[in-house]
């Protein structure tokens, strides 16, 4: 029983981390109608920027304070992601307005190749460390109730809490601020929003920047867990089932979807995996999402697809 709880908690926490990445996808799709396949590359680029500037800034300015280095590196990384968002909007999105979904998808794939190459050229392809002071050792709870206790990964717990806080912040941003309302308007209907005077280009830059910052937070958390290296961009492939399960256009969908996929993945690997020889979790997540889609083709919380003939 204790181990089952451990797996469950582990799955929930990892699910939160997946939904952090899925959030980036959903934000961009909601506001600009683009399925941003380069989200993984953005996570990598942001994490590389953070990791390297954390190393370089103390060297350039000659101080030793870790907290200050982290804060400055974070600020620089945010600035870089905003710059990336601006460049993408200017050079790519503006020219591809109104193209078909698949063309936009391919364009984002092209951007992802570019960012991966550029990131590795600027920052290197070694494994880099992100040290934001996350605790690395586990904690064991409920030892008296259950034999052996339940092992909780402290780093995952903190990361899940940060992810939840970020989602809450984003929800506040969308509901309460004027820019948030403008973003929702654009997501609803581009033309209507334009006709009442909302500047589409600027909104897109804001959305991609927000997605970039979300990617940065995801990159810091995952990078702190796994180390920052090229393969970090592959974590996005694990977050894709979350996106389609929850619905491409729904932020709560990304969260709930993340939790479902996280738990489903881990439980399947531990309990079904050994019977099949192991290693099933990545395709199980996709098959799980596929099964949900067969029942609800637009995802759990996605907008219903209406075909007008």
């Amino acid at each position, binding site marked *: 029983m204790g181990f089952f709880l451990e797996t469950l908690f582990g799955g929930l926490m990892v699910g939160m981390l997946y939904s952090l990445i899925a959030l980036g996808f959903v934000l961009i799709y909601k506001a600009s109608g683009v399925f941003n396949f380069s989200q993984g590359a953005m996570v990598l680029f942001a994490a590389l920027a953070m990791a390297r500037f954390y190393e370089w800034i103390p060297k350039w300015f000659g101080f030793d304070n870790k907290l200050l280095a982290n804060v400055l590196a974070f600020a620089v990384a945010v600035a870089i992601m905003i710059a990336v968002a601006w460049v993408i909007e200017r050079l790519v999105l503006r020219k591809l307005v109104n193209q078909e979904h698949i*063309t936009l998808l391919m364009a984002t*794939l092209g951007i992802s*190749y570019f960012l991966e190459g550029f990131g590795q050229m600027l920052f290197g392809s070694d494994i880099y460390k992100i040290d934001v002071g996350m605790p690395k050792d586990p904690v064991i709870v409920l030892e008296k109730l259950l034999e052996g206790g339940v092992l909780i990964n402290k780093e995952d717990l903190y990361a899940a809490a940060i992810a939840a806080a970020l989602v809450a912040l984003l929800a506040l941003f969308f509901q309460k601020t004027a820019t948030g309302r403008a973003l929702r308007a654009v997501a609803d209907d581009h033309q209507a929003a334009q006709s009442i005077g909302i500047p589409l280009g600027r909104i897109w830059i804001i959305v991609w920047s927000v997605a970039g910052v979300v990617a940065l937070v995801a990159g810091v958390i995952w990078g702190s867990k796994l180390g920052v290296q090229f393969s970090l961009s592959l974590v996005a492939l694990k977050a894709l089932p979350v996106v*389609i399960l929850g619905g*491409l256009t729904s932020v709560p969908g990304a969260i709930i979807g993340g939790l479902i996929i996280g738990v489903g993945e881990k439980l399947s690997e531990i309990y079904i995996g050994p019977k099949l*020889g192991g290693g099933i979790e990545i395709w199980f997540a*996709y098959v799980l999402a596929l099964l949900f*889609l067969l029942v609800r083709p637009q995802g759990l919380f996605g907008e219903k697809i209406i075909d007008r*003939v």
Partner: protein
Amino acid sequence: MLYRENGQFKSSYRADQQIFPILQDRVAILALLALAFVAVPVFASEYLLRAIFVPFLILSLAALGLNILVGYCGQISLGTGAFMAIGAYAAYNFQARIEGVPLIVALLLGGLCSTVVGVLFGVPSLRIKGLYLAVATLAAQFFTDWAFLRIQWFTNNSSSGSVSVAGLNVFGVPIESPVQKYLLCLGFLVVFALLAKNLVRGAIGREWMAIRDMDVAAAVIGIRPVYAKLTAFAVSSFIVGVAGGLWGFIHLGSWEPAAFNIDRSFQLLFMVIIGGLGSIMGSFFGAAFIVVLPVFLDKLPYWFNVPLDTATASHLTFMVFGALIVFFLIVEPHGIARLWSTAKEKLRLWPFPH
């Protein structure tokens, strides 16, 4: 001036409906085939044949298959690598387990196995559409990645999970030298291209295009979506499966599941989009672009004598590749095939302005 149709009259429906109604086109295609079958094997170096032409031919066959699914029927599929893998492993199993199976039969049977699985994974397309379908097809990709690593039977119980083939021959002619490999792949490609072109010109092709353009309207006028979509998946998987068999048998000789991973699927999708969706010619253009470009970019620093270390050169290749894809999509979202047909249109009037 050179490309005009003046004086070319057709006196039968058959003549009017042929694939290349214009004489200049027919001449050009015959010249291209002569070049491909005769000139290239004689003049091309071993490196060109082994490392450029053979991959180009096999991947354009696979792109052809994918184009039928994505370009003509509008079902986005990101699991092409999986179908190539199924084709390759199935062909390997037929060849390894049954004595004396001819190579071509083994490859075709591999394609048939791929068809069966393709139809199975095509069933969700009846309910799921668009980008959701694209991500759902990744389930096929990851599942086959896992299955070929885990299920020992598929790899003939080899301890490492890697398989290899040897002693290939067609009707007694060995397929060992680069020229023989090239000619075999070229033969497959020409036959399948002809078949595909005729399929898409026929009733089934029109059904696919109707489903692509507006599937609800198509259903309203009596086209059965189940039949159309599943046949698209079937034909596409067959061609892709045969291409996978060729890739494993002819190009690699010995392979592991990672040879057909998600990067391969993305690569094929790139080929189809850059080449042109819904165009047989486009598959070839796309394959040429994607196969030749990285090799070209790798060698570019050497030609300009810029001493770049291989890591930087490789990163630059990635960057230029990504940038070129975006550039292409901006300039011509319908792919190189559209550029080609625009050029032909202009050529019909040249040197007159209109």
